[in-house]
């Protein structure tokens, strides 16, 4: 089932290339149908999910037995939540209208290829397989930004993105090899690495390996000061690609922090948790402040990603800081912090994904991202305004929406561990609130400039995509139980181990 989920988009991409489909409309329908399939299949996987605390529904096949690498996929609470979010986001992004530049076939094929790569990162249970999908996601995104991005600048942004994140992933490859070489007999099996933790503790090798992985994930997440690839890539990418970049690719960094660093090297992590937490705090505050200063809608949203991923990693670091048995009594707070971080990953994917899709609608109509050129759009586009307002409020952490559920838990769980850092991180909340309210006010309220008199509201296709994402944002905000149950099945065994 998971294998089918994983490779259906790739198969669909090949079919799109081969079949004599022409025209943007028919290609969009076909690609949308293909992208719907993994979403449905993952719902089936979700319904069969038992929450045993270990990996479930495992499927495997020999791949490179001589090297101890195999094809193995499966889910636990963490990967199921992220994979489901990924499939949802891809469906919304693929059907979203955009300027296809006369190459719709390549666009949809590449997007579906990227979906397989992204799902693969979360579903792989073999470290080498994980790395393969991780790198493939870079290739897909590089071409999406380069070919369908905005103008000359997009090529530079695409290259910068590719170089920067490839540097990260190759450093990670050294870490992967280091973990691999520490097992006997050598294996890339993630379950084995989690169970035996062959390279954990305070040694030089463990510290170096941890640092390599942490650098790779910090680039991907991104944490300040490794974030400089992100703003140009986000701004110059076509809107659906920005959505995937923010919603899915950034999560690979935080996912790595949990899956590899927290699960395979917890002792090393606990020793180095403070520096990681400080970097996360810097990202929270710096990301929010820089976002506040941006006069370009897309740049502003891009920097809020730095801020939000900072929260997630702050939560992860807080959960890593104390080991059971050493700290005692902290099980509850660690569990809260980690659950919050995981919800933040899902929530940020949905919220920021929706926000970036909206910037695409803006670009299609206004051909600009400059806040100063916009204004009063609420009068012409009430639906657009309404959806944007909900997404913005969710992003700034309004209770009753998904972002609040995440951040509240991170703060409550992290406070006993790092009271000062958490106190400072609250600043980020205030700044984010200011920057989003300012954005809403200047884009949608006030007088309507003459040139936007003909501004069209969202069309049906756009509304479907956005409403779907916003609906989940609201549901998670109001009744998060179903999601928390799945995440908890992963968090509880981890913190009590």
């Amino acid at each position, binding site marked *: 089932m998971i294998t089918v989920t994983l490779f259906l988009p790739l198969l669909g991409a090949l079919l799109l290339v081969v079949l004599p489909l022409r025209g943007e409309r028919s290609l969009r329908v076909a690609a949308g149908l293909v992208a719907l399939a993994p979403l449905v299949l993952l719902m089936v996987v979700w319904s069969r999910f038992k929450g045993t605390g270990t990996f479930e529904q495992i499927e495997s096949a020999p*791949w490179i*037995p001589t*090297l101890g690498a195999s094809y193995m996929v499966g889910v636990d609470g963490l990967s199921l939540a992220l994979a489901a979010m990924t499939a949802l986001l891809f469906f919304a992004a693929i059907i979203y209208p955009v300027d296809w530049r006369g190459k719709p076939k390549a666009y949809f094929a590449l997007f579906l290829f990227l979906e397989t790569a992204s799902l693969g990162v979360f579903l792989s249970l073999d470290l080498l397989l994980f790395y393969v999908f991780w790198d*493939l996601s870079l290739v897909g995104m590089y071409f999406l930004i380069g070919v369908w991005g905005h103008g000359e600048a997009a090529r530079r942004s*695409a*290259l910068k993105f590719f170089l920067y994140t*490839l540097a990260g992933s190759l450093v990670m*490859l*050294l870490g992967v090899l280091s973990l691999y070489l520490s097992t006997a007999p050598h294996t890339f099996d993630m379950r084995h690495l989690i169970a035996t933790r062959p390279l954990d503790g305070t040694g030089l090798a463990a510290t170096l390996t941890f640092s390599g992985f942490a650098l790779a994930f910090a680039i991907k997440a991104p944490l300040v000061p490794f974030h400089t690839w992100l703003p140009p890539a986000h701004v110059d990418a076509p809107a659906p690609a920005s959505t995937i970049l923010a919603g899915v690719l950034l999560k690979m960094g935080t996912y790595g922090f949990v899956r590899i660093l927290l699960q395979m090297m917890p002792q090393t992590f606990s020793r180095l948790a403070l520096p990681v937490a400080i970097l996360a705090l810097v990202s929270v505050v710096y990301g929010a402040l820089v976002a506040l200063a941006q006069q370009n809608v897309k740049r502003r949203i891009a920097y809020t990603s730095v801020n939000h991923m900072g929260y997630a990693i702050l939560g992860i670091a807080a959960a890593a800081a104390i080991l059971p048995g050493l700290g005692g009594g902290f099980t509850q707070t660690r569990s809260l912090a980690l659950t919050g971080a995981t919800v933040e990953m899902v929530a940020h994917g949905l919220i920021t994904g929706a926000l970036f899709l909206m910037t695409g609608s803006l670009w299609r109509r206004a051909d600009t991202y400059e806040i100063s050129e916009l204004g009063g759009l609420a009068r012409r586009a009430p639906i657009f305004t309404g959806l944007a307002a909900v997404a913005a409020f969710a992003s700034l952490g309004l209770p009753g929406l998904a972002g609040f559920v995440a951040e509240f838990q991170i703060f409550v769980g992290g406070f006993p561990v790092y009271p000062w850092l958490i106190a400072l991180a609250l600043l980020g909340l205030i700044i984010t609130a200011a920057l989003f309210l300012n954005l809403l006010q200047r884009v949608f309220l006030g007088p309507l400039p003459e040139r936007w008199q003909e501004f069209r509201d969202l069309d049906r296709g756009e509304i479907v995509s956005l409403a779907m994402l916003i609906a989940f944002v609201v549901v998670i905000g109001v009744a998060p139980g179903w999601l928390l149950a799945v995440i908890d099945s992963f968090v509880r065994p981890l913190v009590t181990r």
Partner: protein
Amino acid sequence: MSGMTVSDLIPELALLVGSVVVLISALFLPRRLQPMNAALALLTVVIAVVAAASLPASLKSGFQGSAMHPWQHLSFSGTYAIDSFAIAAKVIVLSVTALVIALSVDWFRSDPRQGEYYALLLMSALGAITLAGAADMMEMVLAMLLSSATGYVLVAFHRKSRRSAEAAIKYYLLGALTNGAMLYGVALFFGLSGTTVFSDMAAPLRLAGALPLVAAWSLVVVGLAFKIGAVPAHAWLPDVADGAPAPVAAFVTVAPKVGALIVLARFVSVLPEDGAGWRVVIAAVAALTMTLGNIAALWQDDIRRLLGWSAVSQTGYALMAIVALGRSSLALPALIYFLAAYALGNVGAFAVVVALRGRAKRERYAGLARSHPWLAAALTVCFLSFVGIPPLAGFAGKLTLFGATIDAGYTWLAVLAVLNSVLSLAYYARFLGPIYFDEAPEQSGASMDRTAAGVAIVSAAALVGLGLGTDIVFSALANSVLLR
């Protein structure tokens, strides 16, 4: 050990006979039938590659080797190794030769001397595969000279082209110098050990003085560095890649390198581990080679020079396997796999150049994805394989090379190789960018060489296939030892 079975040499004999046959037919065939020589040469190579690949099976029944390695043995009084690595290298070199023959058909179609070209190509391939099996100093020198002498002529084959001639002169001068140095080194080894056979050299060398030993192996390494394009004897590579006929460039940047790296492995494993210091020196050479090749490639606006410099950097990566030799069981399988991936990538990339009738300037690649989507895809696969993007073959090659290097305690070299890989993406992407992101300036009238395009696509497909089927190579080489 002292077996002297002619059947061990069927691939070599096939090439020898084939090249003579081609030479004779080139003399007597009328000019319009000259392309027949390509078919003859291809047939020869096919026979040789089948013979090489079936050697283990045919030997299993006959030869009684040791229990661990029933068919691997040293033939001809210990001077010629028949082991998995030699056979793998032969298969790689001969496959490359076959692909290069396919590339040459159209390129040399109007050349009246094309028959001689194919004969020389077969001789050059013979030199390369003999290098891979050489287990004796004289054998090594012989193979080196055969491969070099034919190489010079092949590079200069467009005798009216100044660039071709210039490249050949440069190739020849550097080759003469380094081959001379190697001969001197071989003489020193003979003086130190009283023998030229690798298997008999190890024991006396342990008693040799450090200084003469270092002098001797340095001179031999310089000679081999020329063949593989490593610092300090790398300078010919970009010129040859740029100036030689494009199919020849594809051949000489790959085939001699494969053979020479195997004989280098055999040679250093004879040297005593302590005191001689070869491991550190090779590590330094690897580091310099990969870094220099990558930095020089950054500014190339000509795809052939770019491929030349990237070939230098790839040599640097391959040398990591020599550094890890004997310390990591992964080293030699990784080397073979990496060489196979490198060979396919290089031949594939040159095949794109040949298919586009020698088009080389970067700006002329703009919009290739629109005008020639399949060629663009093939070139992309080759480039991404060089970078080491999974699941292409180049990835598993680099992965295992890095693993072997870390395993051998040379983590710094692996870190440097990683930095270099990132750097290499920059120059490959300088070509990929215009290919995909720009529109073609105008319709170029030149027709496409369809055979070469086929070679490009086959190479790219093989890179994907080899990448997915990594285990075939590694399980085949899992329990092999390098004979010496």
